[in-house]
C-alpha cells in the first residue's frame, strides 16, 4: 500500500480538537470565552472546508486530497481519508450546520457550558470523519464515535424525557451498526491481502458477490435506521423532541445524511446487483415514508414533533432518488440531503427561538405570532416554503430532480406509478406545513403570554440569513452544486455495471395503450 499525505482533510477533520484542547486546558475560562472559542474553532473549520472546496477538481471522478497511511498493517487497516463528488456537499453541510448550531446555542445552553461545547466540537470531528474516511474500519470508528457526543447532548441538555430518548437513540443506532460491522469484517477478510480500503473493496467486489444480498442488508439496516427509512424511524421523534435545539439542528441537518451518504458510498458500488434487485422494494419503503411521514406530521400537536416527522417524509424523497439509480435521481438525492439540512435545520432553529421564550412546543399555545414577531414570521414563511418545495427555493430543485430520476428508473416497473405516488408528497407537504404555519403564526393572538414575545435578535437573524442564503442559492443557481457531483455520480453509476440498468427493458406502459 502506497502512503500519501496531503494533510488538508486531516486538518479539516481534527481541527475542532484544537478547540477542545483549549477548553480543557484553559483554567477559569468564562462562559463567554468558551462560546467564542467554540465559534472561532468551528468558523476556522468552515474556512478550511472552503479551502478544500477551492482545491476540489469537479471533473475528476476519483478520490482527491488523499491522506493514506498504514494503521494496523497486519489487519490491512489504514488511515485513509479522501474526498470526491459524493462527499463534498456533505462536508460543506457539516461545517456550515455545525457552526450555525454552535452559534445558535449561545443563549439556549446555561448549564455545564464547557462540556456542552466540547461535545459539540467532538461531534463535528466524528461527522467529518464519517464523510471523509475511505477505509471501512476507520469509517466505522467515526460512525460509532458520533453516537457518544450526541448521546450526551441529548441526555444532559435535552427536554423532559431526555434520558429515555438518549438511550433509545444510542441503542437503536448501535444495534443497526453491529450488522454493518459484521458485513465490514466479512468483506475485509475475504480480500487477499486483507484490506478495508473502500476503493480496493469495490475493485474486488467479485470476491463477495455471492453473498452480496446479505451484505447489502447488513449495511442497509444500519443506514436505514440512521436515515431513517420507514419503518425504522421509531427513535427519531423521541430524539428530536428531547434534544436541545442545536442537537436537533445537527441531528436533522447532518446525522441523518450519514445514512443516505452511506447508501451511496457503500451499498451502490459494493453490491451493485443487490442494489438493483432491492431498488424497487426500497423505493416502495421510501414512498411509504414520504406519505406516512407527512400524514403523521399533520396529526401532531407538538411543533417539534411535526418537524421531526416531516424529516421522515423528506428523507423518503432522498432515498427514492438514490435507488432510482439514475444520474438525476442520485444527484437530486444528494442535493436534497443538503437542502433538508438547510431547511429542517432552520425549522428546528425556529422552533428553538420560540421555545426559548415560551418554554412550550404545543401549537395551541401559539397563534398570531405574525403580529408580534413580523420579521421572524416572514423568515419562517420562507423556510416553510423551502421545505414545501416552492420552485425558486432549494427544496424544489432536489425534489424535482429526484422525481425526474425516479420516472426514468429502469428497475421500477412501471416507473411512473412510483413517481405518481411520490408526487403526492408535494401536496401533503403543503397540507401539514401550512396548517402548522397557520396555527402558530396566523390569526389573532389568543394566549396572553405571546404578546410579550420579542422579535428575532441580531444573532439569530444572522443565523437565519445564512440559512436563507443557501435556500435562495440552491434554489436559483444550483448548477454549480450539480457540477460538483456530476462526474463522480455518473462514474459510480456506470461502474455499477448491472445488466438491468444498461439494457433498460421496455417496462414503460401507461394506460394500457
Amino acid at each position, binding site marked *: 500500500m502506497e502512503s500519501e499525505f496531503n494533510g488538508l482533510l486531516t486538518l479539516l477533520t481534527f481541527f475542532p480538537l484544537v478547540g477542545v484542547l483549549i477548553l480543557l486546558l484553559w483554567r477559569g475560562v468564562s462562559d463567554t470565552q468558551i462560546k467564542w472559542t467554540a465559534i472561532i474553532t468551528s468558523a476556522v473549520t468552515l474556512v478550511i472546508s472552503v479551502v478544500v472546496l477551492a482545491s476540489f477538481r469537479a471533473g475528476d471522478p476519483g478520490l482527491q486530497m488523499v491522506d493514506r497511511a498504514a494503521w494496523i498493517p497486519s489487519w490491512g487497516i489504514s488511515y485513509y481519508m479522501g474526498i470526491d463528488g459524493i462527499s463534498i456537499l456533505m462536508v460543506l453541510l457539516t461545517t456550515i450546520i455545525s457552526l450555525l448550531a454552535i452559534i445558535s446555542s449561545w443563549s439556549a445552553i446555561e448549564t455545564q457550558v464547557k462540556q456542552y461545547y466540547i461535545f459539540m466540537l467532538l461531534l463535528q470531528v466524528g461527522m467529518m470523519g464519517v464523510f471523509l474516511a475511505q477505509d471501512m474500519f476507520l469509517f466505522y470508528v467515526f460512525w460509532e464515535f458520533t453516537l457518544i457526543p450526541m448521546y450526551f447532548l441529548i441526555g444532559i441538555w435535552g427536554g423532559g424525557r431526555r*434520558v429515555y430518548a438518549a*438511550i433509545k437513540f444510542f*441503542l437503536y443506532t*448501535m*444495534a443497526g451498526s*453491529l450488522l454493518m*460491522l*459484521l458485513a465490514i*469484517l466479512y468483506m475485509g*477478510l475475504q480480500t487477499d491481502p486483507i484490506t478495508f480500503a473502500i476503493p480496493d473493496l469495490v475493485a474486488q467486489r467479485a470476491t463477495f458477490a455471492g453473498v452480496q444480498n446479505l451484505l447489502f442488508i447488513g449495511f442497509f439496516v444500519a443506514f436505514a435506521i440512521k436515515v431513517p427509512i420507514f*419503518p425504522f424511524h421509531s427513535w427519531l421523534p*423521541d430524539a428530536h423532541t428531547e434534544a436541545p435545539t442545536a442537537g436537533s439542528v445537527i441531528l436533522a441537518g447532518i446525522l441523518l445524511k450519514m445514512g443516505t451518504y452511506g447508501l451511496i458510498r457503500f451499498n451502490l458500488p459494493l453490491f451493485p446487483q443487490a442494489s438493483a434487485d432491492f431498488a424497487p422494494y426500497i423505493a416502495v419503503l421510501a414512498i411509504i415514508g414520504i406519505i*406516512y411521514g407527512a*400524514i403523521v*406530521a*399533520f*396529526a401532531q400537536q407538538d411543533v417539534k414533533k411535526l418537524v421531526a416527522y416531516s424529516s421522515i417524509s423528506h428523507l423518503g424523497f432522498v432515498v427514492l432518488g438514490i435507488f432510482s439509480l*439514475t*444520474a*438525476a435521481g442520485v*444527484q437530486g438525492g444528494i442535493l436534497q440531503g443538503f437542502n433538508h439540512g438547510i431547511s429542517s435545520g432552520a425549522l428546528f432553529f425556529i422552533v428553538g427561538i420560540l421555545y426559548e421564550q415560551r418554554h412550550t412546543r404545543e401549537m395551541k399555545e401559539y397563534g*398570531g405570532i405574525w403580529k408580534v414577531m413580523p420579521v421572524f414570521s*416572514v423568515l419562517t414563511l420562507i423556510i416553510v416554503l423551502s421545505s414545501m418545495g*416552492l*420552485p*425558486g427555493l432549494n427544496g424544489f430543485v432536489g425534489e*424535482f*430532480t429526484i*422525481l*425526474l430520476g425516479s420516472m*426514468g428508473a*429502469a428497475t421500477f416497473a412501471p416507473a*411512473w406509478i412510483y*413517481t*405518481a405516488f411520490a408526487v*403526492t408528497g*408535494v401536496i401533503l407537504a*403543503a397540507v401539514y406545513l*401550512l*396548517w402548522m404555519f*397557520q396555527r402558530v403564526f*396566523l*390569526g*389573532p393572538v389568543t394566549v396572553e403570554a405571546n404578546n410579550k414575545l420579542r422579535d428575532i435578535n441580531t444573532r439569530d437573524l444572522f443565523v437565519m440569513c445564512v440559512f436563507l442564503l443557501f435556500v435562495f442559492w440552491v434554489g*436559483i*443557481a*444550483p448548477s454549480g452544486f*450539480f*457540477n460538483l457531483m*456530476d*462526474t463522480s455520480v455518473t462514474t459510480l*453509476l456506470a461502474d455499477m455495471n448491472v445488466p438491468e440498468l444498461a*439494457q*433498460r427493458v*421496455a*417496462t*414503460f406502459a*401507461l*394506460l394500457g*395503450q
Partner: protein
Amino acid sequence: MNELFNLAPLILVFPIIGVLFNGLVGRRFVDHDRKTGERWSGWFATIMALSAFVVVVLLNLALHANHFHAETVMLWDWIVIPGQGLSIPWAMQIDTLSVAMMLVVTGVGSIIHIYSIGYMHGDPDYSRYFAYLNLFLFFMLILVAGNNYLVLFVGWEGVGLCSYLLIGFWHERLAKDGTMKNANAARKAMIANRVGDAAMILGIILTFWVFGSVEFNHVFEEAIHIFESHEEMVTLVSTNIEMAFSTALFAITVLFLIAATGKSAQLVLHVWLPDAMAGPTPASSLIHAATMVTSGIYLIVRSNVLYELSRALSVHSGTISSSDIVALVGASTALYAGLIAFTQYDIKKVLAYSTVSQLGFMIAAAGMGAYVAAMFHLITHAFFKALLFMGAGSVIHGMEHGHHEVAHGHHGHDDDGFDPQDMRYMGGLRKLMPVTFWTYLVGALALAGIFPFAGFWSKDEILAHANANQGEYGLFLVLFILLALAAVCTAFYMGRQLRMVFWGQPRHEAARHAHESSPIMTFPLVLLAVFGTVAGLFNLPKVLTLEFGWSLTLEHWLEHSIQTFELMEEGILAHVPHTPTSLIVEVAALSLGLALVSMGLAFYVYRDKPKTAADPDPTQKIPGLWSVFGRLPIDSFYMKLLVPWFNRFSAWLGFKFEWSFWHDFFHERVIRDTFVWFADLSANVLDAQGVDGIVNGLGSVTRWLADGIRVSQTGYARTYALSVFLGTVVLLIYFLWPYVMR
C-alpha cells in the same frame, strides 16, 4: 436581434425592487408619517408596475421591428445535470403570445395598483400589501415569460403563493363562529392548487423523458417531428424504454389540463376561488379575475401543438382526445358555475362564480382549438372583470362608509346581521354612486355579452367556433349548447345583480347613506370601462362584407406564436377546427337575443323582490336550483367528507398506529421486554453457571461499559445494552474464529 429585447429582464427587475422597497423599508415610512408614507409606499409600487408596463411596450415594438419573430433571452443556467442530459435554463421567450399576456398583466396590474392606493388607505399593513402586489407581478411575468415549462412552473407556484398571501392578508379576522376563515380560505387555495401542481410536475417530467427537453420550442419541434414520421412508439431519452407516442401525448396533455383546472378554477378543483374573495378586493380583481386564474388558459394555448397533435391522433384512431376532455371540462364548468352564481348573495361571490364560468369559456375555447378566441376572451375578460371587481370594491367601500355614518347617527341600531358585501342590504345605489354605477353597468353588459361591448365579440367568437365545426366534430354541438346555456345564465345573474344593487329601494340604512368613492378609485374604473367598451376591436371579425384595417388584429398577432396555424398551412395537420373569420350573423343574433331576453327576465323577476333583506329570492321557486347548486355539492363533498375523513385518518395513523402501536407497543413491549427477558436469562442462568474466563472477562468489560453509559433510572437500559453487546460478542467470536486462527 433587436437591441430592445435585451431590456426584457427589466420586467422582472422593477417589480422585485418594489418588493424589496416595501418589504424592507416601506413599513417604516408608513409608521413614521401615515400620509406621506402611504404615498411613498403606494406610488413606489405603482411606478414599478408602470415601469414594467413601459418595458413591455418596448418589447412589443421590438417584436414589430423583428417581424414578429420570437426571441429568447438567456439569463443563466438553472438545473443542469450533464450525466442525465438535463439542462434547464432561466430564459425568457419574447413572442407575440407572451407579450400579449405581459401587456394584460402589467397594464391591468398598473391600473389596479393605482386603485389600491385609495382602497387600502388606512390599512395598518399598507406597505405589506403593496409588497405582495409587486411580488405577484414578478411571478406572473416569470410565468408568461419563461421559455420552458419549468420556469413557467416557477411563476405558476409563485403566483399561487401570492394568492395565498393576499387571500390571507387579513388573517387575523375571524368568522362569527370564531374560525379563521381568511386563513382557511388561503390554505384551501394553496392546497387545491397544489393538487394541480403535482400533476404539472408529473407532466413536465414526462415531457422531459419523451422529448428530451422541457423548452417549449424543442418540445414542439420534436413532437411535430415524431408525428410527421408516423412513428407509433417513442423511446424515452437515454433509455431503452419505449412508449406509445399517442399515450405519451395524451398523458402529458391531460396532466397539464389537471394543472389548469387547479389554477384556473375548473371542475373539480374550482372550490378555492369563491373562498378566495376573502382577500382585499383589488387583489381579487387582479389575481382572482384578470390575470393569475387565466394561467391555465395560457398553459394550454402555449402547448397548442401538443393538444392539436393529440386531436389529430385521436381522429385517426377514433378515441377521445385530450382536447375534447379540455373542452368538456371547460364547458361544464361554465354552466355549473353559472348556475351557482344564481344562488349567491355576496356581491363578490357572484363575480367569483362568474369568473369560474368565464374561465370555463376560455378553457372550452382552447379545447376546441379556438386558441385565438380563448386569448381574445381572456383579454376582454381581464378588462371587464377587473372593472366589475373594482366596482364591487367601490360599492363595498360605499356601504361601509354608509354603515359608519348610520352607526354614528343612530344609536342602538341593531346591526348584527349587516354585511357590506351582501346584496340584500343594497339597492338604489345608482343615484348615490353614479360613476361606480355607470362603469359597473358597462362591465356587466360586457360580461353578459351585449353588443357592442367587448364581451360580446369574444364570447361570440367562441360560440361561432363551436357552431362552425360541429359538422366535423360531433362533440362541438354539445359544447355549443352548454356554452350557450352558460351565456344565458351569465346575462341572468348579472341582471339580477344590477337590479339588486343599483335599482329599487335601499334595503338597509347603510345603502341609504352610501356615497361615491374617491377619484383615485373611480378614475381606474373609468379607464377600464373604456377598455371594456372598445376591447372588442382587438379582434373584430369581418362584418358581412365590411373589413376594417384593424379586423382580426389579435389573430394576425398571435398566429406568429401559435404554431397550429403554421402546421395547418404546411399541411402537416389536416384536422384542425377553423374559427370563422367573419361574423356569423345567426350565431351573433342568437347569443345577443338570448342575453337580452335573459337579462330582461332578470330585471322583471327582481323588479320588486326581494323587498326587504329578509325576503326569499324569487328563483328559489325553481326546483333543484337552490337545493342542488345552492348547496355547492362539490365543496360539500370536500369539506364535509374528504377533509374530515383525512383528519380522522391522520389522527388514527399518528396516535393509534404510529404512537400507541408502533412506538409504544412494538418497541417498548415486544422488542425491549424481550431483550430484558433475554438479558435476565443470560445474566442469571448462563452467567451464573460460569462459562470460561474469556467470556467472563468480556462480560465484565461490557458490564463496565454499560455502567458507563448508564444514566437511566430504570435499570432496564443497562440490561438491554448488555444483552445487545453480549449477543454481538458471541456472534463476532463465532464469526472471526477461523480468521484469527489462520
